[in-house]
């Protein structure tokens, strides 16, 4: 999709397809969000810049930015925004759109963790913590996985002693009763969201 700069076409897409996206036009570029974000220094773009890039029509750059993946949902920006923009929600909305459009930066750890978590959860309807942690440890290959696991050894043993981690979960673990009903629910929810946000 080619977008002419500083026209409203990408902004319109954001308004239609991103949760709370209609707020983006109300940003007055004061920069309080950028100054308030505790992780600001570690992002590619501050929320202020992301909003300006949306107005400038930089679709590719916005959706492939790592910024919305770095948000920890501390809500500092929302609290401080003089225009009351729900910035955290918009960032998550943009992350979702980026994911659906296949523009997430490669090997973005938050995105990877999100995917692992989702897959893990959908399988049985319950999060299998042991498998989730192992999945994270081994996402970058076997030898790195061993190193990660060794480094976290004492934490794991401690959790086991405190009965917070069941080693038997490795066998498959527990799940919910009506798994197919759960899957049907997720499917329906996605259909609804897709039609509402024109994502299909």
């Amino acid at each position, binding site marked *: 999709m080619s977008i*002419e*700069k*500083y*026209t*409203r076409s990408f*902004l319109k897409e954001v308004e239609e397809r991103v949760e709370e996206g209609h707020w983006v*036009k*109300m940003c*007055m*570029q004061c920069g309080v969000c950028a100054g308030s974000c505790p992780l600001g220094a570690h992002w590619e773009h501050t929320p*202020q*810049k992301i909003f*300006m*890039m949306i*107005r*400038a029509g930089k679709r590719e750059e916005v959706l492939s930015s790592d910024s919305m993946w770095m948000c920890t949902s501390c809500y500092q920006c929302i609290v401080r925004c003089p*225009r009351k923009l729900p910035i955290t929600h918009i960032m998550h909305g943009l992350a979702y759109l980026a994911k659906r459009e296949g523009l997430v930066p490669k090997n973005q750890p938050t995105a990877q963790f999100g995917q692992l978590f989702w897959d893990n959860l959908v399988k049985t309807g319950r999060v299998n913590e042991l498998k989730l942690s192992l999945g994270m440890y081994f996402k970058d290959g076997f030898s790195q996985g061993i190193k990660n696991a060794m480094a976290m050894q004492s934490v794991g043993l401690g959790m086991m002693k405190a009965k917070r981690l069941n080693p038997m979960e490795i066998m498959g673990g527990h799940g919910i009763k009506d798994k197919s009903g759960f899957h049907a629910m997720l499917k329906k929810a996605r259909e609804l969201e897709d039609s509402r946000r024109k994502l299909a």
Partner: protein
Amino acid sequence: MADMKVAAYICQGCGLGERLDTADLAKVAQKEGKAAIVKEHPFLCNAEGVAMIRSDIDNEAVTHVMVAACSRRAKTEAFGFTDVALSRANLREGVIWVRPDDEESRETTQEMAADYVRMGCAEVKKMKLPAGNPETATNRRVLVVGGGVSGMTAAIEASKAGYQVVLVEKGAALGGWAAKLYKRSPSRSPYADPQDTGVDEMIAAINADSNITVYTNSITSKTEGAPGRFKIDVSQESGATVTEEVGSIIQATGFTLYDANNLPELGYGKSPNVMDQAGLEALAKAANGGPIKRPSDGGEVKSVVFVQCAGQRDETGKHLPYCSGSCCLTSVKQAMYFKDNNPDIDTVVVYTDLRMPGNGEDFYRSGQTKGVTFTKGKVSTVEATGNTCKVNFQDLILNEQTAIENADIVVLATGQVANSGVDVDAKLKADIAAAAGDETLLNAWNAAQAEGAVKPISVLNLTYRQGPDVPQLKYGFTDSHFICFPYETRRTGIYSAGPVRRPMDIVQATEDATGAAMKAIQAVENAAVGRAAHPRSGDLSYPIVRIEGCTQCKRCTVECPFGAIDEDEKRYPLFNESRCRRCGTCMGACPVRVISFENYSVDTVGSQIKAVDVPDEFSEKPRILILACENDAYPALDMAAMNKQVYSAWVRVIPVRCLGSVNTIWITDALNSGYDGVMMMGCKHGDDYQCHFVKGSELASYRMSKVGDTLQGMGLEPERVQTFEAAITDIERLPKLINEYADAISALPPSPFKGF
């Protein structure tokens, strides 16, 4: 008036009785002050005390009253005797409240009080009861020059208050800038949409008002006189001239948009699709709610770019250096012309800082809601090619050079240039800058004088010696005391309102015009009874000149900040008392001291200086004279006293109307009398001056800069005489300043003039 009879009253209230030996003070008033009646009273400002004074005036033929109690700024109603000359010795704020209450300080505190009693008696004997300016004139009509929103508002408001108005408009019809608008920025809640200008209703109201006489196609070709008796030649385009008599004048001549022809780099003149804000208003007016078409070919408009600060806030020296404060509102409004017609049109406002005065923030939000895009950036060039333009700019958030392609219309937000006429101080300002090493102004002035150069056209065509228009401060806007007297120009009885005074939008201009109308009404009422206008509002004294002593040096005529003094045919100063603000700058300037006021003169202050008892050089009690501006420095000292800030017992403070009224003879007198130092406190001067009389403190500091040589001639150290800038808020600073200065003076050897 019968023979002078002085009565002195010494108050014992507010702790004066406990802290001071009032019986001793009474003796001073009687023996040294030569007061015929001297009375002490335990509570002078109560009904009984006031009645005692009243009774003496009525029954004992007292003509001059000296009240030794609190500051002259306190209890003005109780001691407001209007039928006698009155002086006040400030024993409370001036003495006991600024001195520590201990045994050690008792002697010096008493000496201070005794001196103030001597000074009060000496002053009152030189005073006369002001009789009021005999040059009263009772024309109560108001002239309004300029028929835009400001002028029409002023006319309507003055008429509503019951005053007749003459309204002169240069153009063919009333309405001014606002009449050229399709709509105006909102003035009412919810401040969301452009609204009708209301100009037609205003014109109808004026036409229906029998109190308002309108001249269109007319200019004020000659203005002479003074408040209460201005005579105006109204020249009409037809060639006819009508003479109108009015009491005061409101100049509401508005602004002209900065000439966009100076901005070829922004594409102006290269394509009809690039225009200034007036250009777009004309298109919107023609479209009248329908779609606005592209001027070059009548094509459909899909994209509009608004370039803010075009030729404004310029740092290169080529264009306007200031912000016009209203163009952001206008651009939001103009973007709405498109959005309200078709939300799919892209409208981008490229700004460096959006400035939304008043309730403009709500209007801005409304613009955003309607989908106007706001981009923080600085436009470098506009390339006009065919039917579209490319706007190149630096995006200041993303920090990159970028462009908007295919803009159908580009609107340049050029600023407001005041229609203020001739800069009467241009030569003076140029000379000052040249003396400081900057010749640019002088070169510009010389170029403007050259044969064939376009000379500015005067608005008022005043016949005043000081020039045909009201003085300007910066950037061509009319000069006025920005904080305290925003509408008062430096020509008494002439008020400026609206964008000729400073850049502004319609809402502010309306408020401005209403304020100026009120001031113009006050001016005619004051003129009718011979009273001063602000800031000495109500003052009945006026400058009296002993013309036989005048040497025609012209310093008074040149230095009067208000252009009150012309020259007669024999080149003597010709005072127009009702143009006078009673600052006394002429009195301070006069080298032969022939100018005075009945209750304020070289003598009233000089005799106070001489009345002070100066101890001999062996006593180790230096004396320091403080001349303090009564508008800011003296109130600050009073407030310091209320806070019980202690300062040196060596000082004797005399309030002056303005530092500009300080005649250098006072300095000489003080030093000759054996004072060890003289300290002057006046208001801030310069472009952001706070002087209530605009130029007084500046002139004083200039005069005092020349005193050093005289001091050296007298064999005195130059640091004995110093001028300080003081603001009314310097409550803690001034006592410190006094103490530091007193320490410095104490460190010097005593004045060699003591005892002569």
